[in-house]
């Protein structure tokens, strides 16, 4: 089966319905690795996993 970045991203829950023709063209040019990267970041943000030593000036989380 041919790799279709739009399908892959949609399957991962990344909504591109509002993307215009030009943006969809860019999406179609994404490599499998680039799509995998976006999907992995999407998953991490949804899980809310902390990853940075956030903090910060004054002991506060900014």
């Amino acid at each position: 089966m041919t790799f279709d970045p739009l399908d892959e991203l949609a399957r991962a829950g990344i909504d591109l319905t509002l993307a215009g023709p030009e943006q969809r063209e860019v999406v179609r040019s994404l490599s499998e690795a680039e799509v995998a990267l976006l999907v992995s970041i999407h998953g991490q943000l949804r899980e809310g996993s902390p990853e940075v030593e956030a903090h910060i000036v004054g002991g506060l989380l900014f």
Partner: protein
Amino acid sequence: MHLMDILALRPVPAAAVLMAITRRCPLRCGHCSTGSLPGSEEHPGEIFQRFAGTFTPANRPELVMLTGGEPLLRPRLARSLAETAARSGARTMILSGMFFAPRIPASIAGAIEAADHFSASLDAFHEEEVPRRSVFAVMRALLARGKDLSFHLTGSGPDDPYLRDVTAEIRREFHDRIPMLVGRVRPVGRARAGAPVPLPVPGGGGAAGESAAPGAETGTAPAAGSAGTATGSGAATGSGAAPALPCAMAAWPTVGFDGTITACCNQDVVDHRPVPGHLRLGHAGADDWSTVRERCLTSGTLRALRTYGPLRLAGAPPGRGYCETCRELEATPPPHTPAAAFLERRVRDMQLAGGGVGFAGRYGCPPYGDLVSLGHPWRKHDL
């Protein structure tokens, strides 16, 4: 300005600027990330005032966050900065340890009045210095005046009994009208002096709760391969198996105690000189906001850090610290292709979609993430 609105801006590059206007603080909290003391460094207010004076209605941050040390040790400067920012249309938030509670001296009241949001820092260490009831007395008075308020709480982690107790009491005391951002004590500043960090028991001595979260000291990264599955070379296509973990902290310029402006507020970046080249945005005594903003927005390295994070960018080996990798970064950012621009936009949009609650969940103490929405009109009341 509600805390949710402030946190929603967090992933937006140059949406705000942090100003650490003094390292001094009269409190001696055991966990202080800035190692602040009453005699710590403090630089002329003119440096900060000059920089705020370069904000214009057409080119300004949305928010100026005044912090320290204890920013309200310089109430006249804090007030002046808030008023200067307001003239350009920028809003101001003050973060304080509230050494003055339960009274509010006139000069401090003036500074708080000039700001759009006031946040009180509270945790078990602070409570050894300033009683909770004193902090509450000030917050009650400010709430009665209609001030937008928040609490910034820190504890050892999700199971910390202190956090359960203090969040419940704040909800009761203020009838869910004041939002809370709950974070975890990190081994920075005085908290780094001895690990694990023992948390005091409110009202008594000794330790309580857990030690600082394992791995927090070095920001240990998730196991390689947990995220990135890409192959090939470069950040976008994957350098080995280093995970892609975007950094939302490389978004707001931070004016350090001496006026040096860095691209993030990590304490080691703020404290150490020289600042790594890719994280230095300028100096408040010499550069204007427009220049700093432009550097923040256009730096290829910062854009890549916000999109891929330092581990992927550096091709870091498993177990390498997140912020440590960033500070030592020497990688060349990927070329700015249409695909790279798309990835950058999508990652930013994903973070924006999470809003204030999403930010608090990622960077704070997850079980308490929703407390940032207390008092917000859009809050779901069944939570």
